[in-house]
């Protein structure tokens, strides 16, 4: 009883999603996140900030992104009518630009002259480097050495954009280590530096900030679907891939209060959720505290964070954002696990069927759509968010299929 009262109290605090979230960071960073919270609270409702951001989204990043009716896929799967939310058509090729524009603009308003960021697949690093170049801020990117190998093209892209890329060789040399190293760098240099976190994770206010900047995805889906399917039409299911979960929370957000809309996050099962080589946090993880937040994490019995694996560098993360943890706990969203093999098949399927090469991350959502759509009625509507384009993955998929192709 007493324990319940304590939890109730925690959920009422700022930056909490039910019991999840919080600010579990070294003391040195506390003033920085407080300062960020205050600045964001002010600028999010500032008409000038809003209009500058909208202008950048529309005239620089190519928003709104298309809501594309995938007719071939719909006919082939023989069930639900399938729409693709084409975040892959954004400038820099992924949804990451939505958040990068918002956060770098915010950093500039706060008087910061330097941004740092972690990156997994390289998409967030490229997006941050792009916006830093545009708005005239210095930019340094932290990336696991293993990911630098897998995504060599994006490393060069970031350098072209004027960013300095630091290889992180601690731990597994992947996304989680890049996040830790970027936090460490932030504690070294705070006054002129903003940490542009790439997903809806980390300490408050990051999960809220990133979700708000990505919520443009669901806001557009809602409006665009009504334009083609008639006023009041809601999708029956919205699917998105989930690593930290930023494109998924952006795709879900404006449908959370529409209970008829099924929200489905597609996690990376890697070689399978019954193997240690997986990154499916909801399916294999448990409650923990890491990287600034209370949420679900892949971890061992002693609370050591697990060295996760996925073919997709962007989903290769042992945690999930706190708002997803809440949606899962409350039963509002479901989280399914997709293996490397299923994702690669979906990558190839969408390329052949619609002439669209999706990011291997997004292919996880396409893979679940291939299972679910045939079970849905023809008058039902499914929206799949294609979080990014797949050019960056072509060489890796060729290697997966046994072709010796290097980029």
């Amino acid at each position: 009883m007493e324990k319940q009262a304590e939890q109730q109290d925690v959920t009422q605090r700022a930056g909490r999603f039910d019991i999840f979230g919080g600010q579990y960071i070294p003391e040195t960073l506390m003033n920085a996140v407080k300062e960020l919270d205050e600045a964001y609270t002010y600028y999010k409702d500032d008409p000038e900030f809003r209009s500058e951001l909208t202008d950048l989204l529309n005239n620089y990043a190519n928003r709104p992104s298309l809501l594309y009716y995938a007719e071939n896929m719909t006919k082939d799967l023989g069930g639900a009518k399938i729409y693709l939310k084409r975040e892959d058509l954004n400038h820099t090729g992924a949804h990451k630009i939505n958040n990068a524009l918002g956060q770098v603009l915010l950093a500039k308003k706060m008087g910061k002259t330097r941004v740092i960021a972690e990156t997994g697949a390289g998409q967030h690093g490229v997006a941050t480097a792009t916006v830093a170049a545009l708005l005239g801020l210095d930019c340094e990117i932290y990336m696991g050495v293993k990911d630098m190998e897998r995504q060599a093209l994006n490393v060069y892209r970031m350098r072209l954009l004027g960013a300095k890329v630091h290889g992180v060789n601690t731990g597994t040399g992947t996304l989680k280590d890049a996040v830790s190293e970027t936090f460490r760098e932030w504690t070294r240099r705070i006054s002129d530096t903003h940490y542009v976190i790439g997903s809806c994770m980390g300490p408050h206010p990051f999960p809220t900030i990133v979700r708000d900047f990505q919520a443009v995805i669901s806001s557009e889906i809602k409006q665009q679907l009504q334009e083609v399917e008639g006023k009041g039409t809601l999708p029956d299911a919205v699917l998105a891939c989930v690593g930290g979960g930023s494109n998924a929370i952006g795709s879900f957000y404006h449908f959370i209060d529409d209970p008829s809309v099924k929200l489905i996050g597609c996690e990376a099962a890697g070689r399978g959720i019954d193997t240690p080589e997986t990154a499916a946090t909801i399916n294999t993880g448990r409650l923990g505290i890491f990287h600034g937040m209370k949420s679900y994490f892949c971890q061992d019995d002693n609370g050591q964070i697990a060295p996760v694996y996925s073919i997709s560098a962007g989903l290769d993360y042992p945690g999930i954002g706190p708002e997803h943890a809440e949606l899962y706990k409350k039963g509002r969203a479901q989280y399914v696990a997709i293996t490397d093999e299923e994702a690669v098949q979906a990558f190839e399927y969408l390329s052949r069927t619609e002439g669209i090469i999706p990011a291997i991350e997004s292919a996880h959502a396409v893979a679940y759509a291939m299972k679910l759509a045939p079970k849905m009625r023809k008058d039902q509507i499914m929206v799949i968010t294609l979080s990014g384009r797949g050019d960056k993955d072509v060489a890796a998929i060729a290697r997966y299929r046994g072709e010796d192709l290097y980029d």
Partner: protein
Amino acid sequence: MTRIASAFSKGKAFIPFITAGDPSLDVTEQLVLAMEKAGADIIELGIPFSDPMAEGPTIQNANVRALAGGTTPDQVIELVRKLRTQTQIPLIFMTYANVVFSRGTQKFLDRAADAGIDGLILADVPYEESEEFRVPCKNAGIDLINMVAPTSHERIKTIAAHSDGFLYCVSSLGVTGVRAKITGDIGGMVSLAHEASNIPCAVGFGISTPEQAHDIAQKSDGAIVGSAIVNIIAEHGKDSVPYVADFVKQMKQAVQSA
């Protein structure tokens, strides 16, 4: 009086840190006893964590070595139990929230207290999140030690006023690791804390030489040294005990003469 309070009542404190299980738990046991003999007043034992966000490369690598050797939190607690049959020096766990939380915070702390631990430092739990650990710590009779940093500014007084054991003052920006120069305003930090409370203030992060330790101890109630010792352990491995003891002796003298 608790063992921690009693340590500070005897004068300026020298507080070494080592990562438990680096290079082995046997060596950790020998190191604790040797450091006590060499003059350490309180000893911090790091429970290794896979992703230590507040550590520089030196202590990160110590964590890697300890985990590679199979060190678990349970084994570290049992080491404390064993040490308590041989020494009454105050022992403090330093680790990360998940190590304590993932096994059930109260259960973990009760076991640690039963084994004989005196205090707990969680590098990724700031004052704002400390309640969920402070209450179980109080129940178990363990001091939860708060940290303040050069960026804490006006929060220093609030944090100091709600502190147990001692206040851990972070000397400079950044993560743990040896530094040529300590950049934070130590004197300012300590006097702000002492305005709010008579809690002892010990300073850590970056201290590696007797001169630095002497200077720090003049401005505070004690000096905490981690990376410099962990470097000696990294170099000498299982043979590091006499080297560490020599270093602790020098540092203790420097602190005492302050």
